[in-house]
């Protein structure tokens, strides 16, 4: 068991355990903060997958952006009178159904993952992906890139418009 394998299991555990906390926690703030670790774990997995740029993007956008937004959302939409902020579980039947369906899906997906013969290609050389991503983004995916920038602009303007006080 080398360091890489160890790191993989560490990050996998981090992701899944805190993912579980996110989902099962009764306190919404705990859930939100657990998300931090989940994201961090995923970023770690990216690093192990030699996607350094993606990993940092993950940290920057998910933790620095989306998570902050979510926490702001929680704070602005919940009456925080104490530290135990309920995350609003549904009725027992619904949870049961959700559990069954999720478990079934998990079993199915894992079964599929394990039994399918995936097209494998030789493992790519380790190295910086930034240049490659930049070149591809501005050549092959230039249209999608511009569309995404427009989308973000519109989302910003729209969000600001929707959220402002009447």
């Amino acid at each position, binding site marked *: 068991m080398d360091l890489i394998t160890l790191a993989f299991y560490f990050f996998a555990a981090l992701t899944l355990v805190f993912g579980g906390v996110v989902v099962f926690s009764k306190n919404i703030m705990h859930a939100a903060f657990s998300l931090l670790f989940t994201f961090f774990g995923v970023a770690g*997995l990216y690093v192990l997958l030699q996607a350094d740029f993606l990993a940092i993007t993950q940290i920057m956008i998910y933790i620095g952006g989306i998570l902050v937004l979510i926490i702001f959302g929680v704070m602005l939409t919940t009456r925080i009178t104490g530290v135990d902020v*309920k995350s609003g579980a549904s009725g027992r039947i619904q949870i049961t159904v959700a559990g069954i369906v999720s478990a079934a899906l998990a079993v199915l997906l894992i079964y599929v993952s394990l039994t399918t013969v995936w097209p494998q290609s030789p*493992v790519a050389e380790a190295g910086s992906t930034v240049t490659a991503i930049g070149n591809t983004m501005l050549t092959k995916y230039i249209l999608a890139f511009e569309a995404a920038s427009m989308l973000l602009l519109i989302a910003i303007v729209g969000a600001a418009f929707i959220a402002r006080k009447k």
Partner: protein
Amino acid sequence: MEIGLTHYLVISALLFTLGLFGIVSRKHSIMVLMGLELILNAANINFIAFAKFGGMNIDGHIAAIFVIILAAAEAAVALAILLNIYQHFRHVNMDEVDSLKE
């Protein structure tokens, strides 16, 4: 056992089902949103895993980046909408938001 594609796929599957469970079992909209983020992350793990092992190479990264962009836009707009819903109903429980106007 060498860490390979299936490892990541399994992790992704588990993360996906966790997210799904979060979406289905919670009333609080923000909890649903968090579940959604988990699902998107699971998808991204798949993309990157296939980029490395499945020959998707840089295209997988690009796809993941677009997923992240969409997630950011979605979170911004969704939270803005939630703020509005909260101003109207004083809560953000999904199944109690049931009228289109006051």
